[in-house]
C-alpha cells in the first residue's frame, strides 16, 4: 500500500472546503489541509509539500500555481496541472464544477482521478445546495411580501383576507406577472403614497 497522499485545498469558501474535506476523508484521505488565505501561498504550499493541490477556479491565485511547475527553488517538487489525456471530459467537468487540480510530477493518473472525481462531485453538491438555499430564501421572501401586500390591500379596501389574495392573483394573471411581483409593486406604491 502506497502512503497516503497529501492534499492541499485552496478555497475562500470555508463551508465548501469543509464539505470537500469530509468527502476526501470518507474516501480514505486523511492528510488534507485547507488554505483559505492566499497570502504567502507559495510558503504555505512549501510547508505542506502536497502531492495534490485542489483550487477553486474563482481564486486569482491559480496563476501563482502556474509558475510552480518550473520553480524548483520555492517548491521542492515540480507541479503540473492534472490533465488526463485519456479522459477528454475531465477538464470540462472540472471547469463546470469550478475547480482545478495540480499534482506533483510523476504521480500516477489512477491515484489522482478518484480524488478529482470526489472533488468535482462535492463542488457540484455544494453548488446545488447553495442554489436550493437561495431558492428557499427567495420563496420565503416572496411569502413575506405577499403577506404584507395582502394586509395593505385588506386595510385599503376593507375586505377580508381571501378576497385580498384573490384580487392580487387576478391582477397577476391579467398582467402575466408573478403574484410576488404584484405584491412588491403594492408595497412600493404604499411606501410612496403612504
Amino acid at each position: 500500500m502506497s502512503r497516503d497522499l497529501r492534499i492541499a485545498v485552496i478555497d475562500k469558501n470555508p463551508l465548501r472546503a469543509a464539505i470537500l474535506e469530509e468527502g476526501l476523508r470518507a474516501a480514505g484521505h486523511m492528510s488534507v489541509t485547507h488554505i483559505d488565505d492566499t497570502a504567502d501561498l507559495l510558503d504555505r504550499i512549501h510547508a505542506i509539500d502536497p502531492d495534490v493541490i485542489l483550487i477553486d477556479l474563482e481564486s486569482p491565485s491559480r496563476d501563482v500555481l502556474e509558475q510552480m511547475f518550473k520553480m524548483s527553488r520555492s517548491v521542492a517538487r515540480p507541479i503540473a496541472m492534472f490533465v488526463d489525456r485519456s479522459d477528454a471530459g475531465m477538464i470540462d467537468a472540472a471547469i463546470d464544477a469550478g475547480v482545478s487540480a495540480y499534482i506533483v510530477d510523476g504521480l500516477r493518473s489512477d491515484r489522482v482521478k478518484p480524488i478529482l472525481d470526489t472533488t468535482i462531485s462535492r463542488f457540484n453538491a455544494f453548488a446545488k445546495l447553495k442554489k436550493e438555499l437561495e431558492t428557499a430564501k427567495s420563496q420565503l421572501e416572496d411569502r413575506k411580501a405577499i403577506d404584507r401586500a395582502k394586509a395593505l390591500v385588506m386595510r385599503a379596501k376593507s375586505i377580508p383576507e381571501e378576497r385580498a389574495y384573490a384580487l392580487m392573483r387576478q391582477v397577476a394573471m391579467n398582467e402575466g406577472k408573478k403574484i410576488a411581483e404584484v405584491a412588491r409593486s403594492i408595497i412600493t406604491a404604499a411606501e410612496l403614497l403612504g
Partner: protein
Amino acid sequence: MTQRLRIGYVPLTDAALLHVVKAQNLTAEYGLDIELIAESSWANIRDKLVAGHFDAAHMLAPAAIAVSLGIGQIEAPLMAPVALGLNGNAFTVSKALFEALLREAEGDMSDPRVTARALARIVARRREKAEPPLTFGHVFPFSSHHYQLRLWLRAGHIDPDEDVRLVVVPPPFMAETLRKGQLDGFCVGAPWNSVAVAAGAGIILHQGTDIVQDCPEKVLAFRTEWARSHKEEAGSLVEAIGGASRWASSPSNRNALVTLLTATAGQDVPAATIERILGYPASPSASPLVATGLRFDEEAIKASPIQALWLYTQMVAAGQIAYSDAFAEAAAAVYEPDSSGPPIPDTAAGPAVFDTPAFSANDIPSYLASLKATGPSR
C-alpha cells in the same frame, strides 16, 4: 439568428476594445451577439478557451503562443488574428527600494540602464550581507510583464533566476503584498500601478515603454479549429475589434471611452486616473501617474508575426523553451493574419528594447547571443 459568442476577459484597462464593441453596439453593425465574461486568472482564460467554454478570449500574447507550442500546461493550437493593443505595463517599486535606488543611481533615474545598474549594486550588497534576495512580482510565467522585468535586470547584469526572486502575484494582491514588504517591486498592467500608487504602497519607477517600445500585450485568441469552422463569426469579431479601435482612437470619443473604462475597471478607479493611464489630457502635473503608452489605434491591433517571433525569443531567453526553427515557425503562425480582411503588412522591425540591438526575425540565434552578452556577467 447569429450564434452568441462567449468571450472571456480579465478586468484590465486593456480589455477596452471588447467593452467598446459591446457598449457602442458594434455587435449590431457587424452582425454579432457577444457575451463578455470576466475571469480572475489567466489560467482560467486559457483552460476555458481550450475546453470550448469560451469562443474567444482576451489573452496574454505569450500565453497564446505557449499553449500552441505545448509549453503552457495544456497543448492546443490557438490563433490570434488581431491584437487588443500595445503597452500599458509599468514597474512599481516599494518606497524603500525607490529610496535605495535614488542613493545608488549615477545619472537620470528615468533611464532604465541607470536604475538597473543601481539595482545591481543593491543586489550585490545584499548578497554580501547574506540578506534574502529582492523579490519582484509579475502576472504569469508567459507574459510580457515577466519578460520586461528580465530585460531590465539583464541591463544591470543581474541574473533573473539567481540574483533575485521572480514570482507570480495576482494583480489585485500586488499593492498589499508590496506594502507588507513581501515584494520589493512588480511589473503589472493598467490600472494596477496607479491603484498601488494611489494606495500609497509604492512608486512607479518605469513605464513598460521605457523598456520595450510598443510591447505586444493582449491578443484576441481563438481555438484555431473553431476559427476555421466559424469563419464568419470569427471574421466579424475581428472586424468589430477594428471598428472599436477606430472608435477608441477618435479624439471626440475620449470622454466616452474614459467613462466606459471607469465603469468596467472591476474596482474603484477614478475617471481622472483612467484619463492619465490613457495619456490624456496631457497635464504637466500628472506625474507620477504618467501615461502608460497604452495604444488602441489601428496600427496597435495588428498581430504581426514578427511580434510573435520576438515573444518566442523572450521565452527562449527566459529558459522556458529551446530554440528551434520549427518552434519559431509555429509561434509566428499563431499570429495568422485575418484571412477575411485586408492583408496585414509586416512591420520591418520587431519591438525595440532599450538596451539590446534591433530584433531581426532572420537571425534569432544571434539576437539571443546578444541578449546573453548583455546578461549576467558571472
